[in-house]
């Protein structure tokens, strides 16, 4: 069996998997709740033109993307540098050109991508009913209500994903996440 360079790099990058999974759920949850809040606001705010609502949602989605990319990259690369510095001190050698050093530069990039793309993709899915309505498709209910339903569905799925990771009952984990979504809707409705 060969032991190529990619394997050697993956030995160090393997932990990115669990970090990225955590970030995916955390920031995905942020994206879903932000969109849910916006949709509730548009629904209760009266006659908000769809194009205006879409622009606002796109703005929020791009802001979440940038926030996710930059925050994860900055925090992860700082953490990696700190770890590498400690290891370099223990080994009394420069690790910048080692597999560990290369992985330390690669992992923050991967984690940042997941952290940034997760809320963007989730936001775009939630915005889909607004686009469909704008393109003239007949929807069974208000596009904002439908988007709220999609958001709650995704929040439930993120909860299920967390439940599967922690080997809990998926339904319970999904419902728990849904309660958070429901609370968010309730609080925003109470303002109106």
């Amino acid at each position, binding site marked *: *069996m*060969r*032991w*190529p360079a990619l*394997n*050697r790099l993956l*030995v*160090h990058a393997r932990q990115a998997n669990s970090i990225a999974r955590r970030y995916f759920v955390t920031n995905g949850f942020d994206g879903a709740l932000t969109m849910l809040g916006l949709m509730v606001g548009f629904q209760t705010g009266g006659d908000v033109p769809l194009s205006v609502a879409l622009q606002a949602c796109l703005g929020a989605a791009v802001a979440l993307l940038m926030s996710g990319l930059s925050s994860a990259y900055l925090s992860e690369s700082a953490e990696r540098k700190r770890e590498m510095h*400690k*290891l370099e001190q*223990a*080994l*009394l*050698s420069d*690790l910048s*050109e*080692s*597999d*560990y*050093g290369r992985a330390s530069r690669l992992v923050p990039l991967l984690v940042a991508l997941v952290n940034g793309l997760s809320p963007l993709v989730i936001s775009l899915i939630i915005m889909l009913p607004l686009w469909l309505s704008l393109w003239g498709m007949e929807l069974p209910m208000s596009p904002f209500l439908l988007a709220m339903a999609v958001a709650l569905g995704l929040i439930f799925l993120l909860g299920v994903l967390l439940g599967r990771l922690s080997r809990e009952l998926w339904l319970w984990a999904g419902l728990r996440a849904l309660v958070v979504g429901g609370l968010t809707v309730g609080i925003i409705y109470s303002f109106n």
Partner: protein
Amino acid sequence: MVRIKKLVLDVLKPHKPNALEFAMALADLGKGLTVRLTVAEVDEKTESTVVILEGSDMDYEAISERIERLGASIHSIDEVEVMGSEEETDAG
């Protein structure tokens, strides 16, 4: 030309890659290269290991480069076995 047949190295390595991954990465350097690795001491961040490499004609530069690439460092060369080739003897 002198051929390196055996090397015993005192190597300080991080916990990752682990002993098996480390030895496999070294064994990958040449066909028929045998690597025997013993962890002598475990610290909070590092492991002191004794790496025994055996082959018919090993490239020390490639071995030390791979060890550094793996994030480890050679502390000392504790034992060697080298062999001069016949052509060289005849020429000399």
